């Protein structure tokens, strides 16, 4: 299921995601997620925004099945994410690259396939392909310590894409990078999404990033996270760098900004 191979990835369909009345309360009565519901159709690029500490990362972990709901349900492709089979085609990108420092680029990207039990020749081939997609073919034998922050993040992206996921979850993936690098990586991610049919859920603090990348933005309130706005972004699927200065984009950004204000989440706490 993970490895439906084809020369171009366009044949790999994304999956639907349904969050229904989701609650997550941690020990000590810390409510992180409260009555969150939304549905994502297959192939959609969705951004999640909200004040720092409101529960976005918690929600993403719940979607990935890495944490358990207190109440409600989360379904990926119509099945509860908590008991999804391990090879369910979900990939996760963290805020920092989190590479294995003792493995070179190729072996880092190979890792997911290795854990899924794919044979060496095939996983080498797929890893090379994924590395090429993020434009790092020259650095294939380098170690993480020998890479810049942007390159490391691209390796991390390649590692997530190597299994051809049908649902890609990203938790502020480029937040630690400088603006230029972030813009380049945003464009790269956009291209990768356009060329595949995968569903993307993207957590970010950057209103510009959310508006530029996604087809829809959901804004959460302060902790516990509750949906306070669900904003469609009708800027088409084919986007390019020029869109960043498009007045229509500015308009969308204003809308997101208003929603964040209403929820009590100013940009002030962006760099927690």
């Amino acid at each position, binding site marked *: 299921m993970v490895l439906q191979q084809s020369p171009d990835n366009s044949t790999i369909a994304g999956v639907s995601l349904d969050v229904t009345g989701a609650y997550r309360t941690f020990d000590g009565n810390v409510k992180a997620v409260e009555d969150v519901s939304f549905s994502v159709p297959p192939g959609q690029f969705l951004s999640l925004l909200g004040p720092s500490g409101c529960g976005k990362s918690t929600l993403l*972990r719940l979607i*990935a*099945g*890495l944490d358990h709901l207190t109440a409600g349900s989360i379904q990926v492709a119509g099945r509860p994410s908590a008991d999804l089979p*391990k*090879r369910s085609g*979900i*990939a*996760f990108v*963290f805020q*920092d690259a*989190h590479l*294995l*420092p*003792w493995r070179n680029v190729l072996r880092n990207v190979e*890792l*997911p396939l*290795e*854990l*899924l039990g794919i044979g060496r020749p095939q996983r080498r081939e797929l890893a090379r392909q994924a590395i090429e997609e993020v434009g790092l073919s020259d650095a294939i034998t380098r*170690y*993480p*310590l*020998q890479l*810049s922050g942007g390159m490391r993040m691209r390796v991390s992206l390649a590692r997530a894409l190597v*299994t051809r996921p049908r649902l890609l979850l990203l938790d502020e993936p480029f937040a630690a990078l400088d603006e230029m690098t972030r813009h380049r990586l945003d464009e790269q991610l956009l291209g990768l999404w356009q060329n595949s049919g995968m569903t993307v859920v993207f957590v970010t603090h950057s209103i510009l990033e959310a508006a530029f990348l996604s087809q829809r933005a959901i804004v959460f309130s302060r902790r516990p996270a509750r949906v306070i706005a669900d904003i469609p972004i009708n800027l088409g699927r084919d986007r390019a760098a020029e869109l960043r200065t498009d007045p229509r984009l500015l308009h969308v950004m204003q809308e997101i900004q208003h929603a964040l204000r209403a929820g009590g989440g100013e940009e002030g706490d962006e760099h927690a």
Partner: protein
Amino acid sequence: MRCGREAARKGMNMPSPGSRAIQAAWPPIMMFLLLAISAEMIIRAMKVPAFLLPAPSAVLRTMWVDSGELLANLATTAWAAVVGFGAAVVLGILFAILLSTSRFVQRALYPYMVFFQTVPVVAIAPLLVIWIEPGLKSVTICALVVAIFPMIANTLTGLLSADPALRDMFTLYGAGWWASLIKLRLPSAMPNIVTGMRIAAGLAVIGTIVGEFVAGELQGNAGLGVELLVAQKVGRTDLVFAAILVASLLGLSLFGLVNLTGHLLLRRWHASERG
């Protein structure tokens, strides 16, 4: 900032590990020579009797004259220390893995491990003589007993400190206990394991000498510790010093070997090995 890092990286490649080692060894060797020469002059000037404090030159002469005996004893001591050290490394890592599997086992055993670490070996050695006959076996076990605790403690810390995000990733791709151990937790623990090995190397030599004092056989080339005791009984202070010197050289070489191994294992990925 990236340019700076690039430059630093290039600079780092310049001195080879060998020349770096020589650079590091140079000052302490100078210091040693300086101290030895001063001691020589003072001892000669004050006419200190040799049975109290032999001059460095006399110790050097003894090392040469009695080199056959010293080397034979060194071989015995080195064997016990290396085997004890090796066993401590292997068993220490295995025990730490066992501890890392269960929070309960950890909580139950850890206080006792700390307690055991405070029991001096000299106090354990007589027991070993009671349980096992005196000789190489009990001496080796002595070395093992002292060297194993830093191995366990350091390895356990390393195993438990694997990156939580990576653990999530391993879960996401359905990695089992064994795959996580081999591909994530043990490699993550490698810097700690090397640290543990550094401490264990020195302790293994100390444990061996102490073991030989208490549980060594008193015949044949039973080790530097035994030779040291015998030399002291017959008033050969020069030979005592020679044995001490040889024993510390053994400790130093073992430490050096561990450092080299650690460097080779970690040089590509761990900041501590990149200058």
